[in-house]
């Protein structure tokens, strides 16, 4: 760990008067001096920083062996690639390997006219009820036409905890990991998060 992480940030340095006032806000006699509390707080803060810096990050759990498609890849090929990999979605990258979007099963379902909820069984139900089965309005489409863009991405040092929250909040199942310029580094899926919670040896 870099040494500067161990230093108490000057901007939020607690003053004894802060502690004294806080102690006045708590009814009852506190068996500690403001000076000792400050020392305790400083050490606890350092421990918290160390704990956070030890957290599992995106870089540690991401899959680096990622198949990506280009914006001008025909959707038929995209679908084939998704099927071959046994995944549910892929990142879309431009010629510079920068992430421009994500394509998932949900994007396909949306663009072939499946109504809510957008899942495979809704598609099957639609097929069985209507004459025309899988509508083919996207037969000629390209990846760029149906991808979700811009993609939600994370940095390599994003903690797994944050990524898990992102999955839940945004209702997504995978997130590309990019460098600051947006280049694809890897992909974190829900499965990677699950593996990460099984222990650090998951990689």
């Amino acid at each position: 760990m870099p040494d500067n992480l161990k230093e108490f940030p000057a901007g939020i340095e607690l003053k004894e008067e802060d502690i004294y006032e806080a102690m006045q806000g708590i009814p009852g006699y506190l068996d500690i001096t403001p000076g000792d509390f400050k020392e305790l707080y400083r050490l606890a803060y350092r421990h918290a920083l160390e704990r956070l810096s030890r957290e599992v990050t995106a870089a540690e759990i991401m899959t680096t062996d990622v198949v990506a498609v280009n914006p001008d890849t025909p959707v038929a090929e995209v679908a084939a690639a998704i099927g071959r990999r046994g995944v549910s979605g892929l990142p879309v990258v431009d010629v510079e390997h920068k992430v421009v979007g994500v394509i998932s099963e949900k994007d396909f379902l949306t663009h072939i006219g499946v109504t809510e909820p957008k899942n495979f069984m809704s598609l099957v139900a639609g097929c069985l009820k209507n004459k025309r089965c899988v509508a083919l309005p996207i037969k000629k489409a390209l990846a760029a036409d149906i991808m979700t863009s811009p993609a939600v991405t994370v940095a390599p040092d994003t903690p797994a905890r944050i990524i898990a929250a992102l999955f839940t909040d945004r209702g997504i199942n995978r997130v590309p990991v990019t460098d600051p310029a947006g280049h694809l580094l890897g992909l974190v899926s829900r499965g990677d998060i699950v593996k990460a919670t099984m222990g650090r040896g998951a990689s």
Partner: protein
Amino acid sequence: MIGTYFRKMAGTTQSPPRVGLAEILWSWLGGFLGIAAVAYINYGFLDRTDLVMVIGSFGASAVLIYGAIKSPLAQPRNLLGGHLISALIGVTAFKLLEPHLWLAAGLAVATSIAVMHATKTLHPPGGATALIAVISGPKVTNLGYLYALVPVAAGALVMLAVALLVNNLAPQRRYPEFWW
């Protein structure tokens, strides 16, 4: 180096704030009821026996368990454990070292501090409990190891019961912080 040594004596921080009036009054009430209960048993029931119930160190315990109820030193583990351990150590020191009471007294208190630390039962009045076992004369020393049960453990239990009942009556108080 000698300068550093003396500078340490200057202190580095300030005294904690004064507590509010309600805290002062609840501390008074707890202290009164706790000590009165133990003393009532002592003078009301045990006066004509060889037993005692009230010992000086309970006055010190009262400061902690009614006046500084958040303190780790004031929690049940420390109150009961500190008194009981120190009482056993005090009686042992007296039995082993009598009539060298100066030595028994020093060893009783010092060993009590050490053992209370080691057992996470540090309770300052325990030091007094150990000392009393050595210096109080026949009325106490004749009790032998019974001293650890009555008055020490029994008295501490009565004080604890009062602490649980009275401290939790106050809207802004809660006792204990932990049991063990």
